[in-house]
C-alpha cells in the first residue's frame, strides 16, 4: 500500500486477499475461503486491474499525499488500533464453547434454502436483487452519452 506504482499495489492487494483466504482455510470454513478466492481475487482484483488499464498508464508513478495528511492519518490509525485493542482486552468474552464449527457446503446449502425463520432464503433473494440493481446502475453510470445528431 505504500508503493507509488499502482500496478504493484494491485498485486499486493491480491496477495493480501489470498492471505485472508488462507486464514479462512485455517479456521476450517473452506466454503467461505473458496467464495473469497473466486469472487474477490478472481473478480474484484481483476476488475480493478482492468480499470487501471482503462484509466491510465500502469507504469506511471502516483502522486503522494501531503505531509500533514500523512501525519494525521498515521496518528488516527494508531489511536484507533490502540483504543480498540484496549477495549478488546478489557472485554470479558463469554465461555468459549469447544464444539467445532460445521461449515460444510451441505450445511450451508441447507440453511440458505431454508425458507423458515431460521433460513436465509430471503437475504439470498434480496442480494440477488441488489446485484441486479448494481449491474444496471454501473452500466448507466459508465454509459457514454451519444453525440447529438446535427
Amino acid at each position, binding site marked *: *500500500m505504500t508503493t507509488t506504482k*499502482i500496478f504493484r*499495489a*494491485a498485486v499486493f*492487494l491480491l496477495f*493480501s*486477499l489470498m492471505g*485472508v483466504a488462507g*486464514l*479462512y482455510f485455517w*479456521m*476450517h*470454513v473452506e*466454503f*467461505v475461503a473458496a*467464495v*473469497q478466492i473466486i*469472487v*474477490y481475487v478472481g473478480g*474484484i482484483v481483476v*476488475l*480493478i486491474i482492468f480499470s487501471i488499464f482503462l*484509466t*491510465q498508464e500502469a507504469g506511471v508513478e*502516483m*502522486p503522494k*499525499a501531503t505531509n500533514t*495528511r500523512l501525519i*494525521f*492519518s*498515521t496518528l488516527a*490509525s*494508531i489511536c*484507533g*488500533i490502540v483504543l*480498540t*485493542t484496549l477495549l*478488546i482486552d478489557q472485554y470479558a*468474552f463469554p465461555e*468459549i*464453547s469447544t464444539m467445532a*464449527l*460445521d*461449515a460444510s457446503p451441505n*450445511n*450451508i446449502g441447507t*440453511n*440458505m434454502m431454508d425458507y423458515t425463520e431460521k433460513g*436465509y432464503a430471503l*437475504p439470498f433473494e434480496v*442480494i440477488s436483487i*441488489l*446485484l441486479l*440493481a*448494481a*449491474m444496471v446502475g*454501473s452500466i448507466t*453510470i*459508465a454509459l*457514454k452519452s451519444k453525440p447529438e445528431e446535427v
Partner: protein
Amino acid sequence: MEVTLTHILFLSTSLFFIGMYGLFTRRNMITMLMAIELILNSVNINFVAFNKYLYPEELTGVFFTIFIIAIAAAEAAVAIAIIIHIYRDHKSIDVEDSQDMKY
C-alpha cells in the same frame, strides 16, 4: 501457543486501520477502492471468528460473510463505473482534482 479469539480480533483490527490509513492517504481513486476492500475483508474475518469461537452451533457469521462478499463485489463494480465516469470528465483519477462539490 494457543490462538484465541483476541489474537484474531487484533489481526482484523489492524487490517481495518491499515485500510483506513490507505483510505485517507492515497490520492489515486483506485487505490482508495483497494483500501476499502481491505476494510471489508477485516470485517469478514471478524464475523467468521466470532461465529467459530463463540457460537459454533449456528452459521450466522458464515452467511453474513458470504453476503458481504457479494455486496462488496457489487459495490466495487459501481465504484469502478463512477471512477470511469469521473475520468472521462476530468481526465484524471486524482481525488485532488475532483473538488467540484466545494463551497
